């Protein structure tokens, strides 16, 4: 997938654990793990809003676009 979730980087910068963040934004640790491990297919704006609020950052700090590498 071309969209990379850099949530773990931001969490490390803010020195916050997965459990604490999950509790702060009101989602289950399992769902947070799906997001961190790049397995999520979609993110709700409300979740993104809560993450940005909890980590005091912008959506661009968490999400990154990287074009798919085509094999030549």
């Amino acid at each position, binding site marked *: 997938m071309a969209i990379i979730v850099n949530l773990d980087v931001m969490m490390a910068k803010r020195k916050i654990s997965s459990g604490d963040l999950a509790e702060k934004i009101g*989602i289950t640790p399992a*769902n*947070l793990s*799906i*997001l961190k491990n790049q*397995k*999520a*297919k*979609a*993110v*709700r704006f409300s*979740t993104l809003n809560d993450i940005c609020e909890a980590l005091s950052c912008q959506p661009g700090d968490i999400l990154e676009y990287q074009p798919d590498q085509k094999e030549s």
Partner: protein
Amino acid sequence: MKTSNKTGYGIWLNLTLAACAVFFFSCLMGDIFGYSVCDFYWKGTLSNEGYVSCLSFLSDEKVRFYVFLTCFYLSTILTYPIIYCVVNLVMNIKKEKIFDKANTRLMTIITACCFLICLICLIGAAATYFLFVISLVGLFVGLVVQCVRLVMDKAIDMRNELDLTV
């Protein structure tokens, strides 16, 4: 089990299982007494006196009877996998495994068997018009199951996507 009873479709599942049992024993009896059953119906209603076939060897009534008998046996043989799949499908629904890829595979087998029965009966329709009606029924049931399978496939994809929405 509890949920299926709560939602009220538990009774329908049990009725489906009962219908499968009845259908299974009917097929079994059909296979055991197939010749007598076919002979009874052939003499009673199906012989179609004055039947004009495009195939010359089917002008003999005995040949036509054996074509009918062969179609009957082939159709009953193909009915067993259908019954097996329906029973498995009902069991999965009872276990609350509704949107599962296994169910769509079972539906694919049911569809394939229905289409095969349709094809066999369509070939056999050269011997008696009655088999043409059976082939239409097989085609219709196959198409209905195929539609349900496609809807279920889409529902499984949507559910998977929803599960991975955070």
